[in-house]
């Protein structure tokens, strides 16, 4: 590297308190540099400072040289010319990065013409080129953003970013809001563009799997400082800094190798194949028939959830035995949350039964309905919204006890302390408010509330997906310990196969409102029978560059028709 394309020298950013402290890294032309770190590490702020996109009140010091020019000394006018022309930007949320009232093609054309004198016809020509570059059909330009899927939108955003062939692309968590199969496609597109356009990519992410998949070099940031940087292979194989090591250790990756062609499955009924307890459907529109054993805690039979004409869940059957953890896996729109809603009673199913220990919840009314609610605990995805911001921690944990038991006063306080202790929180937090706690602590409070009544069934809806990697691992460990101790049956909903692999005894794969595959977790994740499960498994990135290369190859083969 003789002269890097981008060089940051001692860049510090401060609002009221410093958020980035003497950050230095550099990026060669055509290179992919990943900046990783957990929330609050300053990774995004540092990158945003390059484009002058920090909110008012920020003070930036140091130098950021793009091809020898210090970006921090440029005037507003010059900086505008740099944005879009020399630096392209890809945002995290493609839904909010596009204007909903304009057609996608018009928005692209606007970008093309903003930096370039072209006639309308030339601009249209260029739009079609760009769309084909990112793998979208030419008629996508007539669509409005809401008519496209998240993955397609992210492709449009990428097309915008590369419209003027910038030498540097900044991608801020470009795949975090996307499903794992779509993530794999977008990562493949970025890799492809880098090869074709020769653009360098500054990739900001928290996902070590994404780093392993795409990046050449990696910068690890923590609390505003760079703690380690180097080639991905070296850093992943032998991290020098303790923080990098703990970060890599806490990453939960799939242990199974990329799935191969399944063998040994027998057709048990038309369209359904099985290998022992491992069952999958082979034709579309079918659900795996459920065979609940003796006395299941939860049994769903013929459950259909409809929103108007749209059927989010279509006649599925599932069961969970005593002390069993069922991992329910699926991507957004697969019907996971609708199933959870039907079990918790928030959504009224259009048809079918939800039986808790033999009692059909959909038929209960009044007192009986309330009593049965005390036997189901729920842990939500977003710990920030699952606690009342104006209730103390003790009040939140005590809520189920106040509703369903006669515990009051000192006894209640003692039980709350026990629960806080069970989830590894100090009783000194009891008079605090949710905003004074970290995300992981809040999620522990949510778990304490869910187990307060010693429920028979616990529903965990993506309980760790909003948490940082290191916190995620600890919360999962806690969850597993509690399950082993209290032996509740658990419906564990997740889009993350690696998380499910860690926790679930059995797995059910949901695809477009139908259960396409169920079986023991080990069997389903190691030798999936259904092609969708295979795609899902192959798309999940692992935090190991060598293994990820293999998985990518397997994924590409699956993509080929």
């Amino acid at each position, binding site marked *: 590297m003789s002269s890097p394309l981008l060089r940051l020298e001692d860049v510090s950013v401060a609002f009221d308190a410093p958020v980035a402290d003497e950050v230095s890294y550099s990026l060669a032309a055509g290179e992919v540099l990943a900046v990783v770190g957990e929330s609050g590490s300053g990774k995004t702020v540092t990158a945003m400072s390059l484009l002058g996109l920090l909110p008012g009140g920020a003070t930036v010091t140091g130098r950021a040289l793009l091809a020898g020019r210090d970006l921090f000394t440029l005037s507003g006018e010059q900086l505008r010319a740099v944005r879009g022309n020399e630096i392209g930007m890809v945002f995290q949320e493609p839904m909010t990065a596009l204007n909903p009232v304009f057609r996608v093609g018009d928005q692209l054309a606007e970008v093309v013409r903003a930096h370039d004198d072209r006639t309308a016809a030339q601009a249209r020509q260029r739009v079609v080129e760009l769309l084909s570059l990112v793998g979208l059909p030419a008629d996508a330009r007539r669509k409005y953003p809401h008519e496209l899927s998240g993955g397609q939108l992210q492709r449009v955003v990428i097309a915008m970013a590369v419209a003027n062939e910038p030498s540097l692309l900044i991608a801020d968590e470009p795949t975090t809001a996307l499903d794992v199969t779509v993530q794999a496609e977008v990562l493949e597109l970025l890799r492809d563009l880098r090869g074709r356009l020769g653009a360098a990519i500054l990739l900001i992410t928290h996902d070590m799997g994404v780093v392993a998949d795409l990046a050449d070099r990696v910068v690890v940031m923590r609390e505003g400082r760079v703690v380690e940087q180097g080639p991905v292979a070296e850093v992943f194989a032998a991290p020098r800094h303790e923080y990098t090591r703990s970060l890599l250790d806490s990453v939960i990756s799939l242990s199974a190798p990329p799935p191969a062609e399944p063998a040994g499955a027998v057709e048990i009924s038309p369209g359904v194949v099985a290998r022992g307890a491992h069952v999958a459907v082979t034709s579309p529109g079918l659900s795996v028939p459920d065979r609940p054993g003796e006395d299941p805690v939860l049994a769903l039979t013929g459950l259909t959830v409809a929103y108007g004409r749209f059927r989010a869940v279509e006649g599925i059957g599932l069961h969970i035995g005593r002390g069993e953890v069922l991992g329910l896996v699926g991507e957004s729109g697969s019907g996971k949350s609708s199933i959870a809603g039907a079990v918790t009673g928030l959504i009224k199913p259009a048809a079918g039964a939800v039986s808790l220990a033999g009692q059909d919840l959909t038929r209960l009314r009044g007192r009986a309905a309330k009593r*049965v609610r005390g036997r189901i605990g729920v842990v939500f995805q977003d710990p920030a919204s699952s606690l009342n*911001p104006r*209730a103390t921690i003790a009040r939140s944990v005590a809520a189920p006890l106040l509703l369903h038991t006669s515990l009051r006063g000192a006894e209640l306080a003692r039980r709350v302390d026990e629960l806080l202790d069970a989830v590894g929180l100090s009783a000194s937090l009891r008079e605090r408010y949710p*905003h004074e706690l970290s995300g992981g602590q809040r999620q522990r409070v949510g778990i304490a509330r869910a187990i307060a009544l010693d429920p028979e069934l616990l529903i965990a809806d993506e309980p760790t997906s909003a948490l940082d990697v290191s916190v995620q691992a600890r919360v999962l460990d806690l969850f597993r310990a509690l399950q082993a101790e209290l032996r509740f049956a658990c419906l564990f909903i997740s889009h993350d196969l690696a998380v499910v692999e860690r926790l679930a005894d059995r797995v059910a794969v949901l695809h477009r409102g139908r259960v396409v595959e169920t079986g023991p977790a080990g069997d389903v994740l190691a030798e999936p029978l259904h092609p969708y499960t295979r795609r899902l498994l192959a798309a999940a990135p692992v935090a190991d560059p060598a293994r990820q290369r293999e998985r990518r190859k397997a994924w590409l083969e699956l993509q080929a028709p």
Partner: protein
Amino acid sequence: MSHPIAIPARSVGRAVAAMLRRDRWALAGAVTIAVLGLAAVAADLLTAIEGQDPYSYRTEALDPRTGGPAGALGGVSGEHWFGVEPLTGRDLFAIVVHGARTSFLIGLAATLVSVVLGTLVGAAAGYRGGWVDRVVTWTADVFLGFPYLIFMIALGAVVPGHVSRPLLLVLVIGFFGWPSIARIVRAQVLTLKKRNFVSAARILGASPWQVFRTELLPNLWAPIIVVATLSIPGNIGLEAALSFLGVGIPPPTPSWGRTISTAVDWVSTEPMFLFFPGIALFLATWAFTVFGDGLRDALDPKTDVRR
């Protein structure tokens, strides 16, 4: 993802204290409210110090030739601090401070009525949804477009004389005030309802009333306090308007609106007679408005960005 109500839940009291330290206009409003409020509470004491009361006729303070107050500035003197009323010679200071009592009582009580009504109705509409919501929204729209002043004037003429006028005013003004509060509460409940802590309570089998009491209401205080404060000046003004039109507080109970109404006839000869009750009404509505604006900035995180 920033959510307007996910902002740290600092206590309302502390937010108000911080606002008063930072926002001078709101502080001026708060001081004015405090002064007028004290004057209203201590009206009897203040007039006793002055040695007057708002009911006795003092013809000796009048100029016998014109019927107007004797002396300059409407008869302002050590004896009559704001001068006297023409024709009757009643003490204007006593009328203004006792009028403050009337205005504040009716303004606050009417606001309380509309807050209670609006909060319950708005929360029910937002939480229940469906036909409840449609009926409430529709009714609120009708009420907001209703020519309520004409209705109140008509009502004032129809209701028999033995019904207490202040109570009638409170009920009528309060009743027409609920829609604006209900709308804001409904919108807030709609966003709160989607948040998981409300779902958590529902999943546990909490009744709608329990959800309202423990989960919704604590998160509704801030917006309720803001709209309530901002609707007080309107209600004070409405009472004055109704009294001005002769269907409000009946004589001899002092009322700013009625005094202003009388004073308008004298404005060319005795401008001070209009000035004192007019400035009192202006100060009261202005003070509540700037204080309410300050509260909104302090309590509504959506406006935080400006600072």
